[in-house]
């Protein structure tokens, strides 16, 4: 952001907003990693942790919304300041959606782990790694206010889509092979879908920075 404002409290409010959005991003990534870990390593007790972090994230997201509104009312930002505040609100909304996908993954985990061994679970790992990388890139793009990240992220998203399609195909044929596990496999399919959606939201975050 260019130059300091004459009102120091305006700068403080903008910096505070940015820090909160970045914090929300960091929590998103760490919670995503915990929930995937719980699934891949069969660590059921970590599911509860995911849910409790989610509560913190909801309060943080609410605070971001309130702070952004307050900032608009108090300082009436214009031009790049106004865009920054609006971007922050939209980025936070996307992170919020990502967070709810993380929770969905966590909630499916006990149901998937109900059966002794799910071979196909490993397919999720590359999908997770890609989605997480895209998420990380999008948060950096917001932090640096770098709309150019969009093109890189779109490529990343194409890879995620490919991996998702592959996973979906595998799960569909697995259901045909072992119909007795269709419930678990459908849950797995939805986990893959959530990861794919997280990739989409990461692209959205970069797209927000474009206008």
């Amino acid at each position: 952001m260019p130059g300091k404002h004459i009102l120091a409290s305006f700068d403080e409010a903008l910096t505070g907003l940015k820090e909160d959005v970045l914090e929300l991003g960091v929590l998103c990534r760490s919670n995503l990693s915990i929930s995937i870990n719980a699934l891949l390593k069969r660590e059921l007790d970590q599911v509860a942790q995911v849910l409790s972090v989610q509560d913190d994230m909801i309060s943080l997201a609410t605070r971001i919304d309130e702070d952004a509104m307050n900032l608009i009312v108090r300082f009436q930002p214009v031009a790049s300041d106004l865009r920054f505040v609006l971007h922050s609100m939209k980025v936070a909304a996307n992170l919020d959606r990502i967070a709810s996908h993380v929770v969905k993954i966590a909630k499916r985990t006990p149901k998937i782990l109900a059966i002794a061994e799910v071979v196909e679970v490993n397919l999720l790992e590359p999908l997770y790694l890609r989605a997480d990388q895209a998420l990380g890139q999008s948060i950096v793009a917001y932090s640096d206010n770098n709309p150019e990240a969009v093109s890189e992220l779109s490529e990343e998203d194409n890879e995620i889509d490919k991996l998702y399609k592959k996973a979906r195909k595998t799960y569909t044929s697995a259901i045909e092979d072992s119909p007795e596990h269709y419930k678990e496999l459908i849950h797995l399919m939805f986990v893959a879908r959530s990861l794919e959606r997280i990739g989409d939201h990461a692209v959205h975050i970069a797209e927000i920075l474009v206008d």
Partner: protein
Amino acid sequence: MVIEMNQETATLGKETPDEPVIGRIKGKTMIECNDVSFSYDNGKTNTLDHISLDIPEKQVTAFIGPSGCGKSTFLRCFNRMNDLIDSARITSGSINIMGQDIHAPEVDVIELRKQVGMVFQKYNPFPKSIYENVSYGPRIQGVRDKKELDAIVERSLKGAALWDEVKDRLNSSAFGLSGGQQQRLCIARAIAVQPHVILMDEPCSALDPIATAKVEELIMELREKYTIVIVTHSMQQASRISDNTAFFYLGKLIEYDTTKTLFSTPSQKQTEDYISGRFG
């Protein structure tokens, strides 16, 4: 509502780094300023520095910029109010209003000021009745018929959105009105002589928020008939009521664009710093 008319674009200089950035302002030009420089001391120093901009008719154009940047000086050039100051003069360029060079020898300054009315920051009604305040200009211009004057007073007060509030006390002193009403009375006085242009120098800075809102609403209505140029220190006011905004700094025109563009995506760093309250 966007009315797309086949109007000529008000072109305002070339897009070189040193020239104001222009291009989106559309409309038939009312006031055309070419390379205007102005000095208060016979040309020793220029208070206005080579300003070129065209003000479109029947729109509200706002002048913004830090104190002392020359907004009022520039505004006063449009009806040659600066002529009243010794040693003050235009040192380069020209100003055309409706195609007429206002400094041409044949121009009658009194007639010019009739065409280009002015409303000031400190509302300044005459110490007379409401009726006399509004009928003063037309009477000076020779309207004597009482019926005609009555009609002008009614039309002007209605035009200034003041009629309903004062119609039962037209003969009371103008000083009995509230500040906001006095300012609207001054606007009624300005429009009584049917000008083409109304210049307003910080017309709301002495008014409370409600009176300000009424004057702003009035300005937006007046735009249908008049070309309005307003100097304001309130960015919010400029963004609420104006179609175009010009930003001045140290006697120079830095940026001139549609208000929407200037306040959302200004192209000059100086503009951005000023409107968002940053150190320049």
